[in-house]
Structures are given as structure tokens and as C-alpha cells.
């Protein structure tokens, strides 16, 4: 089972940022980060931390609720806000980089998650600085677009919109 961690402040956003991901997965469970318990982390095989809307930044005020990330041994995929959370939990900082809509990216390092991708769908106001020890997998002209450390991956773009195979790759190959 893949556990999807919802970071949206408003439930109406679940239909936009969570449902498109659950639709791509065979078996998943969704939980809001405010309700997350240790037993949820223990029972998950993998975790996806989903994105949220441009104006929603409430999760940034609750970063202590993600302190488990650094020591978590199972695979994680952070999407957009989820990548910001993954990076911030590893000592990174936010970096202003607004990108909305189709964005060109360049893959810098071969990896099992993103392959042969040149165009992505972006919806963010901030990227991050590369956290220590992470590999930089992809970038756009403005921002870091994909990062990795061990089996923890982050993508700033929204693969549930374009490049749905990224989520399938995470489910099958990571």
C-alpha cells in the first residue's frame, strides 16, 4: 500500500491534488499530515507527499510534523509542496521561483524515476536549494526540478498532470 500524505488546507483541493494520484495507483491510502500517526508510517510500503495550490502554504508552518522524513527507510516521493517538504526536512531553504504551466526541464542525471522528460506541468511559487547529500536529477531555467537521496525522491513538477509514468515508475521500480 502506498500512503499518500495530503498537505492541502482546504478539502476541495483534495479533488485536484490527491484524486489524480490515487486514480493512478492500485492500492493507496490517503491521510492528512495533521492526522498522521507512527502506525501509518509503519504500515505503508511507500509514501507520496502530494502538492497543493499556489496560495496554500499552511504546511510550511507545520514542518516539525515532517521530522520523521530524515530517518524514514522506505521510499518517498515528494511532489511540488512534497518536494519542498522533503528538502526542508533535510536542511534546505526555499528559493523564490514562480513557474505556472508548461515548463521545459533538463535531466541531469540518469535515474529510475524520470526518464526522457522535457516538458512538465508546474504550479509553484518556490523551489528549494539543493539539500546536502542529494543528487540533482533535473532542473529548469529557473529552478531545481527533481532531487534524490537514497530512495527518497522529490519532483517540483506535477506528474499526475503530465508525465504520469513518473508515479507508475515510483510505484513499480523504486
Amino acid at each position, binding site marked *: 500500500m502506498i500512503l499518500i500524505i495530503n498537505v492541502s488546507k*482546504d478539502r476541495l483541493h483534495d*479533488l485536484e491534488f490527491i484524486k*489524480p494520484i490515487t486514480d493512478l495507483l492500485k492500492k493507496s491510502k490517503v491521510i492528512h499530515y495533521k492526522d498522521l500517526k507512527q502506525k501509518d508510517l509503519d504500515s505503508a510500503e511507500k509514501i507520496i507527499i502530494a502538492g497543493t495550490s499556489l496560495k496554500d502554504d499552511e504546511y510550511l508552518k507545520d514542518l516539525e510534523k515532517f521530522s520523521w522524513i530524515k530517518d524514514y527507510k522506505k521510499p518517498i516521493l515528494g511532489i511540488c509542496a512534497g518536494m519542498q517538504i522533503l528538502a526542508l526536512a533535510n536542511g534546505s531553504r526555499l528559493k523564490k521561483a514562480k513557474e*505556472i504551466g508548461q515548463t521545459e526541464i533538463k535531466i541531469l542525471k540518469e535515474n529510475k524515476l524520470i526518464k526522457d522528460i522535457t516538458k512538465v506541468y508546474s*504550479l509553484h511559487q518556490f523551489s528549494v536549494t539543493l539539500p546536502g547529500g542529494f543528487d540533482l536529477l533535473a532542473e529548469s531555467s529557473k529552478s531545481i526540478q527533481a532531487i534524490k537521496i537514497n530512495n527518497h525522491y522529490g519532483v517540483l513538477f506535477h506528474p499526475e498532470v503530465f508525465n504520469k509514468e513518473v508515479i507508475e515508475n515510483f510505484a513499480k521500480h523504486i
Partner: protein
Amino acid sequence: MRLASLFSGGKDSTYALYLAKKFDHQIVCLITMDSKNKDSYMFHTPIDKVDEIAKKMNLPLIKFSTAGEKEKELADLKRAIKAAIEKYQVEGIVTGAVASTYQASRIQKICNELDLYCFNPLWQKNQIELLNELVANHFRFKIIKVATDGLDDSWIGRVIDKESLPKLIELSKKYGFNPAFEGGEAETEIVYCPLFKDDSNN
């Protein structure tokens, strides 16, 4: 939250509005762009019935005209949204965007510039699931324009409901068109939805 609906009178914008209400948001007005460009990628045409539908839903309508020229139509949409903010203290927008990143990203940019929340509750939704939900929630909508192989003129004026939906899905599979018409294969107009105050189901 006080939301304005970007409203075309079609099934998607109406269902998005319905979902926003279901999730406890307050719809304070409808915004409709009357585009003179019938081939606009941004705005649904025609919008002949929006005044009537707004009245049936008992919601105020802000209707702005646009020549429908690429990019200029976005400035016109921004003016319309600003008018909604001033008149109805709107805090966010709800749209019926399903798959068009062209449309969705441009609305996201305008909302970002105006510091508004942007909700797209149908985003990436499976088209057949969407149609089934509409019918299950007692929405009835009429085809008002067709533009694809597989749908001849006899479909114009036809109401999609639980009787006609299976035939539409069958034709979409046979001819390979999008059954929810996301690619402009046809345009629809709401005939009845549970938000109508007069519950005559006409």
C-alpha cells in the same frame, strides 16, 4: 470561503460549482465571459442561456464581453474577476477545468496575480467517471454544438441523462472522441441540476 464560479452554463463549470458548495464553500457570484471568438481556446461559446441559468440558481452574474483575441482575452477575464472581488469580496475562483493545461494555467496565473485561491475540482478526472457522476447527481445537460465524427447533427438538442449516456459512451469508443467533450468535440448546456431553486426538473 467566498468563491466566484467561472461559469459557462456547461456541465463542467456547473458541476464544479456544485462540488464547491458540497464542500461548504459559498458561491457568491458567477462570472461569464461572452467571447466573440467562437473558436476561443479559453472560453466556451455560445453562452446564450447563462442569464436564465443564473436566475434559476438565484446567483448574481457578472458578464463581461471579450473579442476573444489570444492573451487580450486574459486581460478581459482579469477585469471581470476584479469586478467580482470589488462587488462580492471574492476570495477564490472555482473552475470546471478538466484537462486543458492551456486554460488552467492561465486562470492560475490570474488568480495568483490577484491573490485568490483557485479551485479546479474536476482536474484530471476520468471523463466517463465525470459523466456518470453528473447523471448520478441528477444533472441533465443538452448538446448544443457538435464538432466531431461520430456525433451528427441529430445530437444537437439531445439531453444527456441515464438513458442517452450509454449510447454517447459507445460512440465515443467507436469513433475515438472524448465523451466529456474536453477537446471541444461538442458544447453542452445545463438543462437541470440540483442547484436550481425551482425544482421543476424541466
